[in-house]
């Protein structure tokens, strides 16, 4: 309901309606711009080249070429890349979330002198550009025989995502009431039991948030895989689709299908968990 403090003016409501209409149009146009390229991508992933080149860009395919997807999955090795992305992403997410929970618990719940210094070091880690670490990391993995090994990628993801994960966890840990934990300690509960059976379950919502944010980062990561992995059997989707598209440069349907496969898990996660994603991105950026 609009509160009008000058009832004498009759123009105002009309003007307000026009303004509202204008604002909504503005917001909808932006939404269309954000989504349309993806709609176009989906449409051309189902077309053959003739349709891509001759039909209007947003025309529906006459005979949807679902075969494009099957073809790139097996012939283009996309299935292998997809599997690599899944297990590398999952391993790093689990390691990061567990290690970060340990650290956040120790920093917010336990008493030790260096805790603020250690927290500060994790937070400064947020500002380090990846490129300033690439050459030493390359050399290090070469020397410890982890070059071209998935473990190099998993450990790197874990280290680089630790700061942001701790930052998101911290906000939640600080607001969590402590009386249950204090009572447990009074009852003689050990720190390990306290952490695993009381604190960790209580922080499940924020753990889920950090897990999904980590999943998105890892799934999309490119530089580390491109630099440390050279065998096809270990490449993840971001690097794999680069190779693949290099070979199939002229087959638009195949390229479209590949790109769709690479973004689909993220889109599905977004449709199911959009609130958590929004929450995680907000928490992970503002305090920075």
């Amino acid at each position: 309901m609009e509160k009008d403090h000058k009832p004498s003016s009759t123009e105002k409501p009309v003007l307000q309606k026009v303004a509202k209409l204008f604002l909504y149009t503005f917001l909808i146009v932006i939404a269309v711009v954000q989504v349309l390229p993806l709609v176009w991508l989906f449409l051309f992933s189902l077309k053959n080249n003739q349709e891509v080149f001759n039909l209007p860009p947003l025309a529906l395919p006459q005979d949807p070429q679902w075969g494009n997807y099957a073809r790139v999955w097996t012939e283009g090795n996309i299935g292998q890349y997809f599997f690599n992305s899944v297990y590398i992403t999952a391993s790093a997410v689990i390691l990061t979330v567990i290690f970060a929970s340990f650290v956040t618990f120790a920093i917010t719940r336990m008493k030790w002198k260096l805790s603020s210094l250690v927290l500060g070091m994790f937070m400064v880690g947020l500002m380090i550009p990846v490129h300033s670490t690439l050459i030493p990391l390359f050399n290090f993995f070469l020397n410890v025989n982890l070059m071209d090994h998935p473990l190099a990628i998993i450990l790197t993801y874990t280290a680089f995502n630790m700061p942001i994960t701790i930052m998101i966890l911290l906000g939640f840990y600080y607001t969590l009431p402590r009386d249950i934990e204090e009572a447990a300690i009074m009852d003689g509960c050990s720190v390990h039991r306290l952490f695993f059976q009381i604190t960790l379950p209580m922080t499940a919502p924020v753990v889920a948030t950090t897990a999904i944010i980590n999943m998105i980062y890892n799934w999309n990561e490119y530089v580390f895989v491109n630099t440390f992995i050279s065998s096809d059997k270990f490449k993840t989707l971001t690097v794999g689709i680069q190779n693949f598209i290099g070979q199939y440069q002229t087959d638009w349907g195949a390229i479209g299908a590949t790109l769709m496969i690479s973004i689909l898990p993220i889109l599905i996660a977004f449709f199911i968990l959009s609130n958590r994603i929004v929450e995680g991105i907000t928490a992970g950026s503002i305090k920075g």
Partner: protein
Amino acid sequence: MNKVMSDKKVIALYVLPAFLLLMLLVYIPIVLTGYYGLMKWDGIGSMEFIGLENYRNLIVDSAFWRSARHSLLLAIFSVISLIGYLLVSLVLSGRIKGADLFRKVYLIPMLLSSVAIAQLWMRIYHPTNGVMNRLLTSIGIEQPPLWLADTNIVLYSIFIPIIWQYAGFYILIYYAALRNVPNELVESARIDGASPWQIGYKIKLPLIAGVIKVTIVLAVVGSLKYFDLIWVMTQGGPNGASEVIASYMYKQAFTTYNFGYGSAVGFFLLILCLIITYIIRKLTATKEEVQY
């Protein structure tokens, strides 16, 4: 209670795994980058100490300064585009039905990999079959631009997908901050007859100054280290027209195997990011920090 919760062994057990990983894979490497920058080294053979020669070469390397200029240009564009994102968020934070849905839809591109976005926009910019040029030819423009091959416009062409990618991220942050502005303030201003524009400009903006400051740092530092999308779309080309600091560093290290010189560039990037973060924070320091 205190005794149990200050058990040194438990603390070490909880903190050390993550801390050692951070040291080993983040902090030691940035120190080593500075150190390798003092070496002549191809990455395979032995290192030769050459003092500050790499850094001296860097100062007179015009290709490097060109890439630094491009990075700076991206940073300036990014900061300017923040104004647009802020405007959208101000609109969204008014009485808009479905504001929540809008900001989620805006966010979608940001969740996708830069590689996929780059590949998609390479098709959009395709000289003959891309959406952009088919649109332009259909309205009668006979010689539409070669978006990624024309050295005069390639940097701008690359900036459009960057805006597309990050718009939702910044709108989300601004929107969250604006929602935290106390409602009573806005209401009492409205009753006093303030226009929506005045409410936005005079009441809401000052209250989210702290968040705006953070986004400026994010936009500048993010632009200075920007890499993935540019690397996939142009590899810094054609002819260095879209080269940025990170792509220049990557080429020096992993294409020409100048590990020493590449390290110097990487170290420069690190120092640049840290200094600029510090300067922006000092310049925009407000007396009263508004914390959200």
